[in-house]
């Protein structure tokens, strides 16, 4: 059983979505390149729509494998990880906010959080409620997630992504539906939590980006 305690480095080595393979190479600091994300580092990946941001996030998270090149966790090629090992990575190393949010609409906001937090009990109920309060959706705690507005759902999904111990948090366009005030609050909560855990942040954006102090900005 391969374990990463902690996951220090994520390296993308000559990675390219297979659908891009035949295209004329566009300038990119990630595709076909050699990029390393380090634990504790805050990185923004910027690109126009269609450049493959969600693909990159899904490749790192292991939910898609339609790429060329290699992705390495602490030097280990992720293509050698078995399902059970990936599941452990998703519980203990990589927090992920997918662009499509992937909430369960029939469950309440609180149940959605419990479903994730129940795996590791990483976050106390008080802390989670505090985050919901700061993001202004505490009154939607017992609402079915499907009945919440898209902006509220995005805030809920951010809280859910934080309900685990992590070495990296991957945020795929995390504030696309948020106003600036909520963007700032979300950024504060994420930055605090990442700092507390010594974790790295990889955030993507098509323009409206999470308001953090980025140490690096990569263009895809």
């Amino acid at each position, binding site marked *: 059983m391969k374990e990463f305690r902690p996951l220090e480095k994520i390296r993308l080595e000559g990675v390219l979505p297979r659908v891009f393979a035949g295209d004329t190479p566009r300038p990119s600091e990630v595709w076909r390149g050699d990029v390393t994300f380090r634990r504790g580092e805050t990185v923004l990946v910027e690109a126009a729509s269609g450049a493959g941001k969600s693909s990159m996030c899904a490749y790192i*998270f292991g*939910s898609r494998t339609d790429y060329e090149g290699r992705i390495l966790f602490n030097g280990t090629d992720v293509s050698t990880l078995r*399902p*059970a090992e990936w*599941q*452990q990575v*998703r*519980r203990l190393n990589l927090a*992920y906010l*997918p662009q499509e949010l*992937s909430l*369960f609409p*029939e*469950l309440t906001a609180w*149940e959605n959080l*419990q*479903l*994730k937090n*129940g*795996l590791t009990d990483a976050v106390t109920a008080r802390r989670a409620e505090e985050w919901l309060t700061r993001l202004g959706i505490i009154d939607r705690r017992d609402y079915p997630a499907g009945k919440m507005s898209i902006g509220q759902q995005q805030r809920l999904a951010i809280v859910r992504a934080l309900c*685990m111990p992590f070495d990296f948090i991957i945020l795929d366009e995390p504030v696309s539906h948020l106003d600036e005030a909520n963007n700032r609050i979300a950024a504060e909560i994420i930055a605090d939590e990442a700092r507390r855990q010594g974790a790295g942040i990889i955030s993507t954006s098509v323009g409206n980006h999470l308001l953090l102090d980025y140490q690096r900005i990569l263009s895809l």
Partner: protein
Amino acid sequence: MKLVDRLLRRNTSWARVAGFVVSNFIGLAIVTGALQFYLDARGLWEADDSFISTDYLVVNKRVTGGDVLGGDNTRFSAAEIDDLRTQPWVRKVGLFTSNDFRAYMSVSGASHSLSSYIFFESIPDSFVDVPSARWQWEPGADVPIIISKDYLTLYNFGFASSAGMPQMSEGIMSGIPIRLSLRSEDGRVEKTVNAHVAGYSNRLNTILVPENFLREANAEMGTGSQQAPSRLIVDVSSPGDVAIDRYMEEHGLEVAGDKSASQASFLLRLVTAIVLAIGAVITLLSLFILVLSISLIMEKNRDKLHTLLMLGYDLPAVGRPYIRLAVTASVSAFVLATGATLVMRSYYLGPLEGLGGGGGPVWVAPAAGLGLTLVVIAFNILAVRRRVLSAWRL
């Protein structure tokens, strides 16, 4: 984990699951019921003659006028035996060996004694279904004998009553020591041995002794001119086969004893096999219903499965609600089927015991049902695993 169950049980069609339980119940009930009935009913034919399997036929040539006038045409030649061996319905053929010396039997009671010239025959031990301890002979020991039940009947109702002799039950007869005086044809060798009746047969019209005893006695006292056998014992695959009758007819052969037990037993087995096959097919079809309905639920819940896997749930954990559903449904059907079989048995057991049957083991049929249930569960576990893995790779 209640949340996961709640999520993944969505889209469950309870009507389909109930459809599985009912059809699986019917299939299993047919299998266990038929098996139980077979086990109880076969005693009707087999209990009274446990020495010779109903699959064995004793064959001899028909005696014709020419034979009476001194011919020796009732013996089987090697070619005829080989021809019989190659018939498709023949499993094996055993030869009867007869005594090649004179034998004289005497039974002494308190007031009466009985003596007579007799004959012996033997067949290969593999054809005799007596526990080997009772059918063993070593030099110096008593010789066990199996006699035709007809001989006892003949004695009790034909001879004993007219000669003023006491009638004897099978048990008493078995307890009486028998003395056998054996003498070679030329009178040079003579010996006496003790014997006892080890059993009675409905289907063997002879006086049967262990093969090794007769071989040794023939070697010691025989003339050495061992003749070809006039009777054969044949192990057949299906005693009711018309091909057997046709062959016997064409070759002028006779099957000794009552064949109806063979045929009834064959018929019982055939009917049971057909009913079992029908039950097995229904069980198999119900297995497909369950696999399909669980696959359908999982297909409809594919996104949910995928999302749970993305949250970090282990693969077995997301498959568990479906496996639990399959196990619960299958075990319910099994319990119902076993119950139905026991109820059915309680109805037929009385009449069946009146006919002389009953008393079959009660665990075999439920064990077979349990085996089928485990097959159903195993198939579903495999199907669930495959689906989970495909949702993981989505």
